[in-house]
């Protein structure tokens, strides 16, 4: 049987650990909301943007601008492909579809006939931005990386964020952990042992 005081101490430790995890998760989600990007901090995995970005460098993303500009470095993920890619925007085509005056009238009449006091949003236009990207260190553009019959990326569908800030090298630890199984076990073992040791105090 465990002594009640010991049990209480263990529960306390467990809760503390949970709190650390929860606050890390909250901070990550808060950054996501702030930048409007599902992964606001990424680690560079390939050398296609060398010498500026090398493996293990950390990039900070921002995704709140409606349109990206030529020369911006974006992180994109093509549908059905799992790996996000960090490349520079070469060409940008901003397309706006304006609806005709007749269609606008129809929309307004519909809004009136529905009888609501608040006139709903009347869309006078819709648009999209098409992008062609290339890695600074690659000889050719990214057409070969896109999907079949996909000539451009779509800003709204494919872009995860625009690179705004850079910190070198500190992300290399995540590459080491994900690509080296023994290191992963060593880390877990070290954490377990240090938890046990701190228990004894």
């Amino acid at each position, binding site marked *: 049987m465990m002594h009640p005081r010991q049990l209480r101490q263990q529960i306390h430790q467990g809760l503390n650990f949970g709190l650390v995890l929860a606050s890390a998760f909250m901070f990550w989600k808060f950054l996501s909301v702030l930048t409007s990007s599902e992964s606001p901090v990424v680690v560079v995995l390939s050398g296609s943007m060398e010498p500026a970005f090398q493996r293990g460098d950390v990039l900070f993303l921002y995704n709140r601008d409606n349109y990206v500009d030529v020369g911006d470095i974006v992180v994109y993920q093509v549908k059905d492909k799992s790996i996000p890619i960090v490349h520079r925007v070469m060409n940008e085509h901003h397309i706006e579809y304006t609806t005709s005056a007749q269609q606008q009238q129809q929309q307004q009449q519909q809004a009136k006939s529905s009888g609501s006091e608040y006139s709903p949003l009347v869309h006078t236009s819709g648009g999209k931005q098409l992008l062609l990207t290339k890695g600074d260190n690659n000889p050719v553009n990214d*057409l070969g990386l896109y999907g079949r019959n996909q000539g451009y990326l779509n800003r709204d569908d494919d872009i995860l964020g625009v690179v705004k800030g850079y910190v070198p090298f500190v992300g290399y630890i995540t590459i080491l952990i994900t690509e080296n199984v023994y290191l992963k076990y060593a880390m877990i073992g070290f954490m377990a042992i240090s938890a046990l040791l701190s228990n004894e105090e």
Partner: protein
Amino acid sequence: MFSITQRFQTLSNTALTYAIYVAVAVVATFYYQLYFDGASSVPATVDNISIKSHFKSSRSFGSMNKKPKENTKLTFDIDADLSPLFNWNTKQVFVYLTAEYPGKNSQASNKVTYWDKIVTSKEDANLELKNQRSKYNVWDVEKTFRGREAVVRLEWNIQPHIGPLVWGSTVSNATIVYPDSKVGGK
């Protein structure tokens, strides 16, 4: 009282705090130096621009389903001194030549890149190029460029050793008019 893990934690916390202080100081002086050196008005001229236009029908030239697509290339002279962009936090400068032209209606627009270069040191920052050919074949979302007028600019992006990336444009400003090509002809 003092366990190894505690000592390790205190040490790494202090190291991290001071590393952040140093990074902030580096970024502050980086911005100050850029402002002081006049990075917002880098002197540059782009002129003697000529356009070549071809119709291509392979996927790597922007064509879909073998439909002919107008590809354009430029030949140009550049005279630019990018040395104001280099200071102690500049890792490299990516300099690129863009053309911006209107789309089908007033809200639409297009911007394309014809040429770019990675400059990694202040010694190479003085660009004097004569009859430089563009690096890329450029196509539009439409079949042809329809004789539109484009504004050509030399722009830059500083990638730092640490901190925010900085973008800007040189004072160069040139206009070109695309040929009014018909599909199939030259």
